[in-house]
């Protein structure tokens, strides 16, 4: 049983933006976060603006050197897209172990990014892709790096009249490695304890680009810039990787909850970052 609410069902993006501009009402996409949270009393709200009829938001576009995901694309859409395995291998990996089939069919990428949950599985891979987010409101659009999107636990830079329109990135160069590891208490359909994504691009025996993102180990999912700085332009020796992994772990501010303790999250953030960096380096070089 859900608490009572009003729902508007705009059919087009301008209609949706107009509804949002009214100042009452929160976007509702697949509802796979919102409904459980409303039912459990963790989320309040008496007016929602459904985005599910807004066809303009549900698309996946591959152009020359850019991939764009409409915020209404579902996790299943990502899995069904044959080019995505090349355009975002770790995002496919994250989608593959995301929830169960029914939830994957309803859950949107927009909802996953916007919910601001530290355990949102699509976000570490998107961060390591260096993705940008495009926010839209009745008064226009703005695009910013996803890396600047999160402010704090479940807080983003998005204004109440804005919605996430799309997410885009430049696909990793062929030969680079893009990895994701989800650590959880069971294999299927579980909330992430520690989620790590790594991207490594090698050139001439050196690491050209490296991005590291860590989920569930701080109030927001974040990039380990310092660790990335330690690796960029260098040959990734075991020692160097170990130092970078330590640095990444140093940036974590984990909490203890029913799933795991803060200490365990730290330990695994460290060991998994190390593991993924090694694996990525091996794969890329």
């Amino acid at each position, binding site marked *: *049983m859900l608490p009572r609410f009003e729902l508007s069902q705009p059919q087009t993006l301008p209609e949706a933006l107009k509804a949002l501009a009214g100042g009452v009402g929160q976007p509702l996409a697949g509802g796979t976060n919102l409904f*459980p949270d409303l039912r*459990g009393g963790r989320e309040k709200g008496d007016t929602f603006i459904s985005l599910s009829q807004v066809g303009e938001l549900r698309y996946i576009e591959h152009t020359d050197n850019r991939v764009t995901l409409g915020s209404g694309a579902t996790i299943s859409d990502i899995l069904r897209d044959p080019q995505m395995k090349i355009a975002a291998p770790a995002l496919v990996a994250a989608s593959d172990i995301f929830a*169960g089939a029914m939830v994957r069919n309803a859950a949107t990428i927009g909802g996953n990014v916007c919910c601001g949950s530290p355990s949102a599985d699509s976000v570490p891979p998107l961060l390591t892709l260096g993705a940008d987010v495009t926010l839209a409101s009745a008064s226009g659009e703005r695009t910013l790096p996803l890396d600047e999107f999160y402010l704090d636990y479940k807080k983003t830079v998005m204004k109440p009249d804005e919605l996430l329109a799309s997410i885009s990135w430049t696909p990793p160069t062929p030969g680079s490695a893009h990895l994701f590891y989800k*650590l959880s*208490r*069971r*294999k*299927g*359909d*579980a*909330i992430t*304890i*520690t989620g790590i994504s790594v991207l490594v691009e090698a050139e001439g025996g050196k690491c050209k680009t490296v991005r590291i993102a860590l989920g569930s180990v701080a109030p927001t999912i974040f990039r380990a810039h310092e660790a990335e700085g330690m690796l960029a332009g260098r040959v990734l020796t075991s020692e160097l990787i170990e130092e970078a992994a330590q640095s990444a772990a140093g940036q974590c501010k984990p909490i203890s909850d*029913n*799933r*795991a*303790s803060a200490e*365990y999250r730290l*330990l*695994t953030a460290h*060991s*998994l970052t190390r*593991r993924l960096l090694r694996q990525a380096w091996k794969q890329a070089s």
Partner: protein
Amino acid sequence: MNQVDTSPNAIPNVNLRQVGKNKPRNDSPTKVYGKAIYAGDLIMDDMLFAKVLHSDRACADIKSIDVSVAKTLPGVHSVLTADDLPATNAVMTDMPGQVGGGTKNTKQPILAKERVRFYGEPIALVAAESYELAQRALDLIVVDYEDTEGVYDAFDAQKPDAPIVYGNDNIVAAYKVRKGDIEKGFQEADFVLENTYSSQYQEQAFLEPEAAVAWVDEHDILNIRSSTQVVEHFRAVADALGMPHNKVHLQAPYVGGGFGGKEVMTIEVWLALLAMDAQRPVKLKQTRENSFISHGPRHPFTITHKTGVTKDGKITAAKITLTSDAGAYAKLSPYILLYATVGATGPYRVDNLWIDSTSAATNNLPTCAYRGFGTMQATTACEAQMEELSKLIGLDSLEFRRKNFIQTGDPNATGQIIRSAVWSDQCATKAREALGDKPKSTEHTVYGHGLACYQQSYGRIRWMKDTSESWVGLEMDGTLIVRCAVTDIGAGQMSALAQIAGEVLGVPMEEITVYFGDGHVNPLAGTSTASRALYMTGKATELAAKNVRNNLFECMAEYFDVRPEELDLGDSKVFVQDNPERCMSVKDMAKHCAAQGVHRHSLEIYRAPPSEGLDPETGQGEVFPDFTYGAHAATVAVDTDTGEVTVIKSVGAHDVGQSINRQAVEGQIEGSALMGQGFALSEELILEKGVLKNGSFSEYLIPTSEDVPEIESIILESRSGLGPFGSKGIGEPVFSPVAASIVNAVADAIGTRIHHLPLTPEKVLTAINEEKTKEAAE
């Protein structure tokens, strides 16, 4: 891959035609076509919807309950608190069903009055025109609580200054076993090993939350259709309401899983009260969250084993203490403790034995029946100890077990002589063989093999004098009817009866209709608990069918001019064994016999072997009708970076006596493999000062399809059990060793043992790191 073995020393059975075969169950079609109606699916005219106000604290005085506003809400028809109930305000929570004697007569308030003793204790009931209205009424009820000091640990509860939750000392039950001379036994030992093992709360997590509909009919009979394992709760409902037993009619349609969680009364009495008060049909379906607090989960146990062994592996003495957390009310804790006590030594012979066991009350969730019923927790500890002992003396762990297995004719912990076959060795050997070689370690992965054996009873405690009845009748068209009030909770209880009656009377099970789950129309059959349903109701059905067969044969012998022993029934025909050409269809036989006035129906009762209880000083006596023996083995992979455990292979090998339906036996083994895996690895109710923190399916993690290992079922048939055709009970037995085998496999993989379950990745990683530190120091 599954295999069957009927070993050469098995007692040959008559040529079985249906029993033991792989038969599609006759309850399957209705379920796969979406036609099966569960308790919460019934829709009645004029029906009201109920909600229950559960306490959100674990230990508090209730200063007042104000329902005045809730009552005025339009559409709300009934709001009940303890003040509105019969003065006794108590419902029986003791062993349900037809029990001849020896129960503890435990009771629990129906609704909390002056005090709440556990998180979730029911306080008020509401029936309204919709669930939404009922919920709004609940939200308008104001309970003024004053928190009081509670006790949340079974050991703390036994301290002299502990807050009292139960009786005058918080002791819900205690047993002792004194046998032989342990001093002498320990002196004879070359090694003595002492270890403490503890295990957690486990939730039944049946997929169908508690649900029922209650209504008063035109005969003033209170009808309840409920998702229960026990239709004989009608007596407890009647007693609670002060009604005659014969005015309460409780029926169970198909039940969406029970596992013990629907053994003790759950929501039936609440609905009874509401339906009587509102005089309209009332439905209640618990939400998943409320389901977690509407039945008792598995008891956490702390078990200490001190064991003496000789260098060549003979156990010389054991001193064992067991402590369980009963939570705020007794429920079935005394019995579960007794099962754990009997199971403490596993399937091993220990002549010098000392056991003390205690169940203590706390302000935690009241714990209750759950597949394995204490034996499972005892097995998990015992098998860990066996593994540690074999490691200590440097003997292969199966070899070590072999030196100590109970054999037929040996006494078990309480001195009961085992009369049926004990095939622990055969089962363990086969289970372990099936694992094959252990994979080689890789960069982040280590592998381990684990084995566990068990001794698990089937059938209820003997001094309960359990009985079961069944009725079998041959219709004029040659079809068969079985009437037996067994509840069908998913294990194929109903279908098995068709197979048994069909075997005896030569009719294919597809042509048999079984009326079940309704004790006012069908003969009472007792509970679907304690791995007794097939044993007891199957036996009663077998006996009834044999009576019919004898009656028919008497008549047909005359017709064929042979002796009755010369006849047989099969493939819908009666025939002369030596000359099968001389035959008649069952249909014609039915007509022929009917014309002769032959009694084609029979009602039979099966009585389990009784006993008179245990000697309170020595704990010696006959507790159970019989036991099932077997083994489970597992291969695991452990990720040394994260502590994640993956079960790769899971093998159950069990002497089931005689399998009635092979597919159903495999189904029990496979289901157990996953439920035991959940217990070993991921399942744990988290309570903080009695308050449940993870009561939902996203936080309490039962295994999913992606957690499934390769599962192999090895079925052995000694045909030595007390059940129909020599079968033994299997529902619980095949479950009890699973977790232990996985835990042992993890210990094998990481080279160290974790003593507290479940083995979460975090605990495993901590153990790996501690072991590394230890090794580095050495």
